[in-house]
């Protein structure tokens, strides 16, 4: 009986600890960040003290591990904390979530058959707007919201 009571208390305490949640939390960036990829494939965002290596992203998109050279990446974070990344001539928008010392792909969203010409993101809470000329879509952490315009 005693053992049962102790176990029950432990379960209650551990449950109370794991359910601690600070909300609401807002992770959205007011505007996208346009960053040049350096010669090592790194992208560094000073305002948010944020950097990552983009080689794998270019390999995934272009099947060329050196394709990052001289490229810019357009990055924005939505209010839920997902990172949206694309670039000129990309066919996809990549949605990442933060993981331990890494960004983990959550969704790869196909947006253009021929590749984007001049894409940009806008923060349109609760969505991320992707515009490329007349092409315009809204994105969430799950993918496209509302379809292409």
């Amino acid at each position: 009986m005693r053992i049962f009571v102790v176990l029950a208390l432990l379960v209650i305490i551990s449950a109370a600890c794991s359910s601690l949640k600070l909300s609401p939390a807002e992770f959205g960036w007011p505007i996208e960040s346009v960053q040049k990829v350096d010669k090592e494939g790194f992208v560094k965002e000073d305002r948010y003290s944020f950097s990552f290596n983009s080689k794998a992203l270019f390999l995934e998109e272009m099947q060329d591990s050196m394709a990052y050279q001289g490229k810019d990446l357009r990055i924005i974070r939505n209010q839920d904390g997902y990172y949206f990344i694309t670039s000129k001539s990309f066919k996809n928008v990549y949605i990442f979530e933060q993981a331990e010392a890494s960004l983990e792909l959550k969704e790869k969203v196909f947006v253009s058959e021929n590749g984007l010409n001049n894409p940009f993101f806008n923060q349109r809470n609760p969505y991320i707007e992707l515009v490329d000329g007349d092409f315009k879509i809204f994105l969430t952490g799950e993918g496209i919201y509302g379809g292409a315009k």
Partner: protein
Amino acid sequence: MKKLILINVFIILIASNLFAQSDYEIVQNFKNRYQQFEQQIKNAVSVEELNALTGEIERFKNEFSTYKELLDKSLYPDNFEKSFDKLGNSLVLRRTDFTQIETLQTEVITLRTEVDELNKKNAELLNQIQILEVQRKKDAETIARLEKLVSELRASLKKRDELVYAIIDSLAPKLSGDVSALTQKEKEQIVAETEKKNVLYIVKKSLRDNTRFLEVTTLKPEDLKDVKEQQSNFVSMWQKVGPKLVDVYAGRKDKAQELKDIDALFTSWKTGIQREAWESIREDFALNNINLQSFYNGNEFTEIITSFINDEIKSYGVKSKEESERIYSVFVDSVWYKTIANEWMPYLLENNLLSSQQKDLIEKKIAEWKEVISPKNLTLIYVGVGILIVLIVAFFLLRKKNGSKPVESAT
């Protein structure tokens, strides 16, 4: 709830269709225009230009007020209002600069008038001094008048130079940074200001007057020390702006030549100070009717002095003894020990115009000359020794005489 989200999406879609613009581009555009205004405020050359900018900044603010919310979030660590407050403060500060510049310009105009007046006065004094210096025979009254005029002129030149320093100094703030980084417009502004203040002319005039002052006057070592200090101050002051003006005037041959002239005048003044020491020394000999050849450095001085003494030694016995003794007395007692050794020698040694070896060589030569003019009189020594021998002989003779007398009496 679902209805609310749909309305939200609908509003966003309409707004997005109206303004299919990149927020990033809007912020970048704002930042670029903002930086341009900052630069324009910095480069403004008049209050009128600043007034025009105030209006433009107001229009810029109105234009972007639509994006205030976006800019508030994006202009971290500033925001929309704070950014315009900063521009406003820059405008106020720049306006203060112009007020100060206007005050300084008024001061410089006053300074220039004073410089012109002092230049006239100095020219008159220089002429009067030259007339008196030309009179070879100087009575006490003339010398006193001359000394008074020289002193007056020196004070006046010093005062004029201080005014010139103030005018040069007024250029220094604009030339304090890296001149090569100045824009063409900024360089033109400095050129205009330099021309307006007539800086190159007044510097040249000042340097010429200072050199001429040395030419027409005979100075003492303590006066020369002052002049040297004055020259050194002038050089330091000119160093602040002179080399930078060369860059500012690059491409303008006439002005580049004027700057070269100024450098040459500085060199001439420096050389003049050295020459003045030697000329004043020569003048000290000349005042006592010992006319030496010109000398302009320690070697020449040593050579001419030793050569003069050698000639005197050689001619001893050829001309009258009295004349040789008179020349020796004037040279050594009235000039060398009284003026040169006492007054000039410390200055010459201190300024490395003469080495201690050269000084020793001359003094050795003077001692040699003294030996010829008044040798130690050996006759007296011989006479003295003779008298002493006579006295000793007499003493022994007397003693001997006294010692033999009792023997005689005993026998």
